[in-house]
């Protein structure tokens, strides 16, 4: 097991039942301007996105009929994209892990090794996704949304025409 995979396993274990510090860092960020809802949502979306993408790349590597160097480029590009968003969300541990994992991909000598590393990173992002999910008051905010929607008209609805759906 390489150093990065050992670290990933340790972080998954640590974040399993107790909220990782990155969640609190993210929630504090932009709090002063009243935009913390968007901050939370964009961090949640980034984790969800990367978790789904890496799983598809993992399955392709398991399939065994794809080009190793192209898969490294595609998976590394997906990790780097979210690493830079994690930086702006102040989730510095996630940023550091993703940049180092993207670099570690290059060391994989076959699709099996690449699949294993991608899976570990995907499981780490999976853990972070649930940690961020649990930090959101779904029930309360859902009620607020339903109240607000009652008299909210989207700016681009005027002139919209529906085909019949019934």
């Amino acid at each position, binding site marked *: 097991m390489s150093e990065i995979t050992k670290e990933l396993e340790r972080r998954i274990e640590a974040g399993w039942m107790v909220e990782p510090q990155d969640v609190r860092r993210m929630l504090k960020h932009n709090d002063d*301007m009243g935009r913390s809802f968007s*901050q939370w949502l964009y961090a949640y979306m980034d984790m969800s996105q990367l978790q789904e993408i890496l799983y598809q790349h993992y399955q392709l590597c398991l399939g065994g009929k794809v080009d190793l160097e192209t898969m490294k480029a595609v998976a590394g590009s997906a990790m780097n994209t979210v690493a830079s968003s994690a930086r702006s969300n102040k989730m510095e541990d996630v940023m550091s892990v993703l940049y180092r994992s993207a670099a570690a991909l290059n060391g994989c000598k076959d699709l099996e090794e690449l699949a294993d590393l991608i899976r570990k990173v995907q499981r780490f992002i999976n853990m972070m996704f649930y940690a961020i999910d649990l930090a959101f008051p779904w029930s309360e905010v859902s009620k607020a949304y339903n109240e607000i929607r009652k008299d909210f008209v989207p700016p681009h609805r005027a002139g919209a025409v529906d085909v019949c759906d019934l």
Partner: protein
Amino acid sequence: MKKLKFTFHGKDFYANMLTDQAPVTCEAVEKACPFTTRWVHAKIVANEIFCPTKIEGPVLRENPIPNLPGDIGLFDTPQTICCWHGDMKPLGSGNVFARFTPEQMEVFHAEATGLWKEPGSLVTVDVVEEE
């Protein structure tokens, strides 16, 4: 000197095009102009608004510098023009192809600050020669 012109709320606002720092991007923007689109307010950064466009700019950013108040950048992923028009914590570095002078930014800022509560308002974008 070429100017980027935004028309919304019945008024015209200008910024200077950076034709020497981002010639290819400026050319792509001018080629797509004029067009009408909507302002969308940035969800995290304060004093940033952007508008979706159909500009096919360079795939690799020509002038990727950390964004400061007054910068105007083109983002190729969502094909949007982003304007930073006041104090803000930048998220990254866009492909900056135009910039407000302090005077231009002041009048733009006065009109744009209300857009957080008025998302989706229409704007026409054009490139004009300085009179």
